[in-house]
């Protein structure tokens, strides 16, 4: 009888880089760059650093919410080959949801723990500005049969529903927004992210985007206050009624989110090299303790962040008090406030260098990009444990915990 080894392999992060965030506009910083080049630039940096050898790679996992058009076909394999990853490296993609960036880590880590593979590249990539909005809407919205049965409401209505349920006020959300964006501004201006961020250049070596683009306008208090509720109109059209059919006890929805307290989209990508303990040529940067992927009630979607976080804490046997640094999504100000309130977090440990409200939501790229930021925050504070969490669509959510290792 062959001996069964029940001992699971530990999983480590050896290398992590991200691109800057580019805003989701036709004149956005990354708009004129083909999505594949977000990856080629990251791979180039991996090669230059050579801390995580790409020659013996087992798998390339790519998370991308909208794998259409320039991100279509067998995107993972095409992009991998185009970027010069070895032909014998398996490649596959996860798509359809912003949690897919963290899904890549989940599946890679499971396979590494089982000893099935030794080394994997996990990537989140999203060129939101180059994908048509019509490609982003699925049948849950445009198919009346599905929309009715699933009581579909747009994410903004879910966010206002959450805020209403939690009793969050407009000024509370605006206040959170202002603080978060000013923290982001400080962090960007002080080059806090630069160590794990690659400047994007064109094929001639000329600069395209060196720093995160962010919405400085949100720091204008007058502008902030002048914003009208973003979802009141569509709420009135019927989505409020649909949401309230599931939450009748609320009676009405307060439309407290504005263009300011929602994130909007961004372009960006991040790449992580993970593997067993001796997978790199250098000691690992961090240990990947665990990743949770959960599904919960869809209408109040973002509220499932709490379950995802609890799931990963349970999986890793850690108490929430053991987490030094928190990075959670800011698709809407309510999402972040929910986590902050629920776990009674000190603002000094939660999203202290800003978040999506400043630079936008890079969807599937967001998870891996947040891990890069978390690594930098751990480094600069000499802390150990960080938690990254984000909500997806229709009640999905994901979280992961990493531990910084001394070099």
């Amino acid at each position: 009888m062959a001996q069964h080894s029940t001992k699971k392999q530990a999983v480590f992060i050896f290398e992590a880089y991200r691109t800057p965030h580019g805003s989701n506009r036709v004149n956005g910083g990354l708009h004129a760059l083909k999505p594949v080049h977000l990856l080629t630039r990251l791979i180039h940096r991996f090669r230059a650093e050579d801390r995580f050898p790409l020659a013996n790679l087992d798998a390339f996992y790519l998370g991308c919410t909208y794998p259409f058009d320039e991100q279509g076909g067998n995107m993972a394999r095409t992009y991998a080959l185009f970027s010069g990853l070895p032909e014998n490296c398996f490649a596959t993609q996860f798509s359809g949801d912003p949690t897919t960036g963290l899904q890549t880590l989940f599946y890679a880590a499971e396979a590494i723990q089982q000893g099935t593979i030794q080394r994997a590249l996990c990537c989140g990539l999203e060129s939101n500005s180059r994908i048509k909005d019509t490609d982003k809407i699925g049948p849950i919205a445009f198919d009346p049969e599905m929309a009715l049965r699933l009581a579909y409401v747009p994410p903004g209505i879910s966010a206002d529903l959450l805020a209403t349920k939690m009793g969050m006020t407009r000024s509370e959300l605006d206040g959170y927004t202002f603080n978060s964006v000013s923290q982001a501004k400080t962090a960007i201006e002080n080059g806090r992210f630069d160590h794990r961020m690659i400047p994007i250049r064109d094929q001639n070596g000329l600069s395209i985007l060196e720093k995160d683009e962010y919405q400085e306008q949100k720091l204008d208090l007058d502008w902030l206050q002048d914003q009208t509720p973003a979802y009141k109109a569509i709420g009135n059209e019927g989505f409020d009624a649909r949401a309230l059919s599931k939450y009748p006890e609320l009676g009405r929805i307060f439309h407290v989110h504005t263009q300011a307290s929602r994130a909007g989209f961004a372009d960006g990508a991040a790449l992580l090299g993970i593997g067993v303990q001796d997978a790199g040529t250098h000691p690992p940067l961090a240990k990947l303790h665990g990743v949770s992927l959960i599904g919960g009630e869809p209408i109040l979607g973002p509220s499932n962040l709490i379950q995802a976080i609890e799931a990963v804490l349970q999986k890793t046997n850690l108490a929430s008090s053991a987490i030094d640094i928190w990075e959670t999504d800011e698709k809407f100000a309510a999402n972040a406030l929910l986590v902050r309130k629920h776990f009674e977090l000190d603002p000094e440990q939660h999203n202290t260098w800003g978040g999506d409200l400043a630079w936008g939501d890079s969807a599937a790229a967001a998870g891996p990009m947040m891990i890069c930021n978390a690594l930098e925050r751990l480094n600069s504070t000499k802390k150990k444990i960080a938690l990254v969490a984000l909500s997806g669509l229709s009640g999905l959510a994901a979280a992961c915990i990493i531990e910084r290792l001394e070099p």
Partner: protein
Amino acid sequence: MIRYKKDTSNVVVLTLDMANRKNNIINHEVGRAFIPVLAHLNRERKKGELTGVIITSAKQSFLSGGDLKYLYESKDVEDIHSYVTKLIEVFRSLERLQVPVVAAINGTALGSGFELCLATHHRVCINDPNIMLGSPEVSLGLMPGGGGLIRTLWKLGIMPTIDLLTKGRLLNPLEARDLNLIDELAYDRGDMMRKARAWIEGQTAPKQPWDTDKHSIPGLPADHPETRAAVAKASARLFKETRGNYPAPQKILETIVEAAGLDFDTGMQIEARNFTELIAGKTAKNLMKAFWFDFNAIKAASSRPKGYGRFRPYKVGIIGAGMMGSGIAHICAKAGLKVVLKDVSRVIADKGKQYSAQLLQQEIETGKITDDDMELILQKIQTTESASDFEDCDLVIEAVFENRMLKGQVTREADQFLHSDTLMASNTSTIPITDLAKSSMRPENFIGMHFFSPVEKMQLVEIIKGESTSRESLARAFDFVKQVGKTPIVVNDRRGFYTTRVLNRFILEGLALLQEGQKAATIEQMSLLSGMPVGPLALSDEVSIRLLRDIETQAERDLGEAYIMHPGFPVLDKMIDELDRTGKSKKAGFYTYPDKEEKYLWEGLSYHFPENAEQLDLQTITYRLMFSQVIEAVRCYEEGVVMAVHDANVGAILGWGFAPFKGGTLQYVNDFGLSAFIEVATDLEARFGPRFKVPALLLEMEKSGTHF
């Protein structure tokens, strides 16, 4: 440089008129010169004192393109990018001036000149079929950079733009009007200006279609399944044509496809970046060098002896009405010369004339000439069997079979009827001119003129100067070649001259590879991938394997002990003596030539030339095929066979299709890098023999830090 004139109706006419130049071009200075003009126009508009703008040119042409010298010399990507970004800004502000802007196109507008036209609201062009319009950048390894590509795309749609720009197709005014790239045609300058003014009268603040909300790229959108399929095919077709060696058409295709899915201004950014990449790249420099600078050196007649008046022959005699003779007769007649075409019998000579008739008939069918033109051209060719008809010829070209005795004989026969200053030329690819000149009573009037087959298509003529050839004869030969529309290079009289000598190295290297046990298909494929138009085995079949052996045998006789047998030589013997497969004319050579089907490599090859189990790496095969030619070309230059770098480069490209993207044989060394070239050649010499020995010239050049 830009003349500014405002009339009473507040219409400003900007007249491009560059000082000290035959043509207007756009360079960074012109770009800059436009900026204050635009600022001034804007001020006038704000004061309400501007109704419209007309741009025209004081030269015969409108604007002939970018400043190639600047582009050729520029290396700094930041400079190139900022130059082209400035150009984009200038054109963009022109079309957003908020008053009507008209291009009054009085002459040829190419490249940046055409980009300027596209950035106006209305284009009026004189309807002269000699005017050329369009974006020929691709032929010099470039692409439009000032927004010409994006504007063409937004005017024509994806597939028509791919067709125009990847081929660099030029249009006459009528064709351009049919494509909607020109809005109005005019009879003459006056009519053009009237029409330009008339159009302005009816306008207030016209916008370009792409600056209006509703406009999109015409035709099927980028993500339409038909577009996707067509693009996939276009990209494969491009590879077949270029083997991936030409970045310009590829970048043009990439830019069109990417920009088609994006907004107008993002498209501009991508155009500017890809333009910068091309300019900074090696291939564009190689192509600019060969097809612009080297060509211009030939046009400027730098290899022609100075001090002799231009030779204008009136009547040309041609001996031999075979393939070459009738081809030469044809091009002479087309160039307006009277021709006496002689062969041993009038019947044969008539057949030669018939060849010209056939070619002209084809031109009638494609609408290039009329029946009357054909009649006129054919009338110029007089056929004969008597050399006495040469007596009033200014030039006689002998084009009989490649045989010393025969050539000597026909020369002597003609010589007696020629007057003392008739130029006598021999069309030969191998026989020493100095020897042939001995058959002539006036060897100083005797010269070699190596035409290539088919004469009507091949651009090159290799002029061979014999030992006794006078400088004046050379000047006259040069003038004649230019008069019949060919490109002359001048070489000295050494065995094989330049083109035959170097090309044979390529063929023999291919045969040596076969002899060594490399797969025939690999040899042929690697040649194509290296940019050669035909593989060495197919080429052997074309020129005839027997002729190749004759040339080598002659070399052996001429050189005696100094002769080193090429390792490819035994293949020739085997093909002729053992296998009786001597080439295409026998429908059996390295290839098999079935009726009505494409040729394919003969199945027997691998039996008679057994393939090694372990094949050479592809890189080494490529190097051997290319270095064998380049090293021989360097030797030719070193020995003074070919005297000018531009003659060596252009001669290689036009003579035997040597990888144009490398810019020619000597430019190949520049492109490769001199030290790297020496290193590879040294390695090849050690592994494959002294034929790869680095010429001393290269070592000297390395020491002195010079290049070709």
